[in-house]
């Protein structure tokens, strides 16, 4: 039974990074904003970071993979390959992410021109750059200006984080190879900023209850709430409703505290439910999919990793998890045998001795028995981790779709997910693994372990932090789900602001780009609100 009927200016579905930004911008403009979030707030004391068993907990009850934990705020995702990393609650996945903060590069927006195996974006790097900068100022991003491998940009609001011994060791290896490297940009403040304390180098960088890492629940939501936005938690949206004119009229949602179904109407609906939740909701609602692209072209990035051990102590358990980037291979060079490029994300190591002995990053477990303690003394404090992260090509068969039989407790079909790397991705992986071995050799590692994330049956089970592409933006309604303002082609007062709209993945962690785009879309909604309140047609912008 529908318990209530209400009407608002703007209704936002999901309170993660992009929902938070939209709530802030639109509430500050004086609009009546409500955000519905299926999870709850996480208070600082609820995080496990101050527990003595935090290492175990972050691999069990706080595991970022929804299928590796049991949490009542989650919804079922049946993946036949990828792990599904997300968090459902205020702040979304920023509660458990690492806040590595690189930008896309200009060519990432022009892959259609470059080789045609991916679409061009309908916007350019230059369109987005001002929004990157404003998001950086909002959050207090840290980093070092002047990287010759990226376009010029203003200095980060806070300076670079400490250049750890692991970073120093790797930088010498990259120098030896003649490869680019640069200290990492991070969504972590290196000094006190906006009432939040600077990073203390604890190394527990999956979420950060002290707020040095930007959790949107701490950095953005307080501003949105102060501006008058209403955030309703434990409110799971079951469907988006549309009227005869094709406009969204609002949503039906379940109050997870009382069990009641409620309806909230709105003049503009903003979907911010991530690359799995958003296509699931659109498909379950039967809207927005005249292109047939909803849920398709799921991108995760082409990912492989390495762990190396060096004689000199580097104490990689200390300091922010990412130390530096190498953009040496970021651009396409077809002589490598594939299109697109990749970055190296250089890490420190795990902050947990237990986690390292249990096979952190590459599954390299410490031996049991009499050799265990010798192994530990030789390896702990000597470990360095690396990722190679590449731009995977879209494939319509890599997708999020609805199960045709199984529904969740609310009667909504569960999300299913399929992903496997294509030919270009496999070639890139092989090349990346060879280069990781080059780095290990140049660093003088006495041991190096690689991971390709394939299980014993050969299935690529990537830790898929990045779930993008499933509601891609584009120039044409027949090939995309939203236009350049992230406005649905089919439902003119519905916007999609999460990572699902990214047509390509670039070679980087996407949250900075997703956040910048969300800010851009929010300001468009703000500035066009009167028109959006009545329009029945989406224009190609």
């Amino acid at each position, binding site marked *: 039974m529908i318990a209530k009927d209400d009407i608002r200016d703007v209704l936002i579905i999901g309170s993660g990074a992009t929902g938070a930004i939209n709530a802030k911008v639109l509430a500050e403009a004086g609009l009546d904003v409500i955000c519905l979030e299926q999870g709850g707030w996480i208070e600082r004391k609820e995080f496990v970071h*101050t527990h003595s068993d935090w290492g*175990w907990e972050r691999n*069990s009850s706080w595991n970022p993979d929804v299928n590796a934990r049991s949490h009542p705020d989650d919804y079922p995702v049946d993946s036949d390959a990828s792990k599904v990393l997300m968090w459902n609650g205020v702040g979304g996945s920023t509660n458990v992410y690492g806040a590595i903060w690189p930008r896309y590069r*200009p*060519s990432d*927006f022009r892959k259609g*021109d*470059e080789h*045609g195996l991916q679409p061009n974006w309908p916007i*350019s790097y230059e369109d987005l750059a001002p929004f990157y900068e404003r998001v950086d100022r909002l959050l207090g991003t840290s980093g*070092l200006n*002047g*990287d*010759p*491998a*990226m*376009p010029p940009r203003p200095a980060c609001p806070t*300076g*670079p984080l*400490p*250049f750890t011994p692991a970073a120093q060791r790797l930088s010498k290896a990259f120098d030896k190879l003649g490869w*680019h490297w*640069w200290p990492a940009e991070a969504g972590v403040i290196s000094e006190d900023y906006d009432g939040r304390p600077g990073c*203390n*180098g*604890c*190394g*527990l960088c999956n979420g950060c*209850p*002290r707020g040095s890492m930007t959790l949107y629940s701490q950095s953005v939501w307080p501003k949105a709430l102060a501006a008058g936005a209403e955030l309703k938690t434990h409110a799971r949206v079951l469907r988006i409703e549309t009227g005869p004119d094709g406009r969204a009229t609002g949503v039906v949602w379940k109050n997870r505290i009382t069990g009641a179904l409620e309806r909230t109407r709105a003049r503009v609906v903003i979907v911010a439910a991530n690359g799995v939740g958003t296509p699931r909701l659109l498909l379950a609602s039967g809207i927005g999919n005249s292109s047939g692209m909803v849920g398709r072209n799921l991108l995760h990035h082409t990912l492989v990793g390495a762990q190396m051990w060096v004689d000199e102590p580097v*104490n990689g358990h*200390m*300091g922010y998890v990412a130390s530096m980037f190498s*953009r040496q291979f*970021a*651009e396409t060079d077809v002589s490598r*045998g*594939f*299109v697109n490029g990749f970055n190296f994300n250089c890490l420190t190591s795990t902050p947990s*001795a*237990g986690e390292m*002995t*249990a*096979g952190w990053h590459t599954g390299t*477990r410490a031996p*049991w028995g*009499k050799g265990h*303690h010798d192994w530990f003394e030789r390896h*702990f*404090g000597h470990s360095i981790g690396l990722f190679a992260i590449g731009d995977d090509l879209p494939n319509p068969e890599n997708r999020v779709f609805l199960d045709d039989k199984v529904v969740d407790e609310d009667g909504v079909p569960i999300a299913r997910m399929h992903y496997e790397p294509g*030919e270009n991705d*496999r070639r890139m992986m*092989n090349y990346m*693994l*060879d280069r990781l071995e080059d780095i290990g050799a140049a660093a003088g590692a006495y041991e190096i372990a*690689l*991971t*390709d*994330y*394939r299980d014993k049956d050969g299935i690529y089970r990537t830790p898929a932090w990045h779930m993008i592409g499933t509601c891609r933006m584009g120039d044409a309604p027949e090939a995309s789900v939203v236009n350049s303002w992230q406005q649905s082609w089919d439902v003119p007062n519905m916007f999609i602001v999460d990572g699902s709209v990214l047509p390509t993945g670039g070679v980087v962690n996407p949250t900075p780009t997703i956040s910048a785009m969300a800010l851009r879309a929010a300001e468009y909604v703000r500035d066009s609100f009167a028109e959006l309140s009545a329009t029945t047609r989406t224009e190609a912008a």
Partner: protein
Amino acid sequence: MTHPSPAAQMRLTQALASLADVLLPGNDAWPSGAAVGVQHAVLRRYIEAKGEDTLAQLAETLGAHGLPLLDQSDAARTDAVSAFESNDPDLFGWLQDASYFAYYEDASVVALIAARGTPYSLRPHIKGYDLPKFDLETQTPTHGRGHYIATKDVRPVDISGLELDTRITTKWGLQR
């Protein structure tokens, strides 16, 4: 729900303690797994992860491999645990990982790590680690390497030689 009898429960705890001592034997520098109580955390976490109903099966599996390994030589204990590892790698791996985590979150083990000269804290999030600030003068890269293609300079590349549709990579990843 079938709960093990108190005696069976005690024997299961003994079996996990015995396993912990083979996985993490003590020596002059380090305590054994059982000495720091690894078995208690492992049992608690096993129940949380798998449920009480699975305890009888766990006890049966451990018992089938001779655990607890009372009054046996080191070699015999090692042989028994090796057989367990080979016969049931998934369960063994879970218990191995749980034992390692429990061992290294013990305060006395953490103190031993720190005493070796490696700064290491049981709860580092509270006070963090002292790290020197980034030194702009000495740590800013001076290599001058790196480039990007500006938007206006993006040009088509010739992909005809890649044969992505016809030349299939069958050996990839670690099998490459």
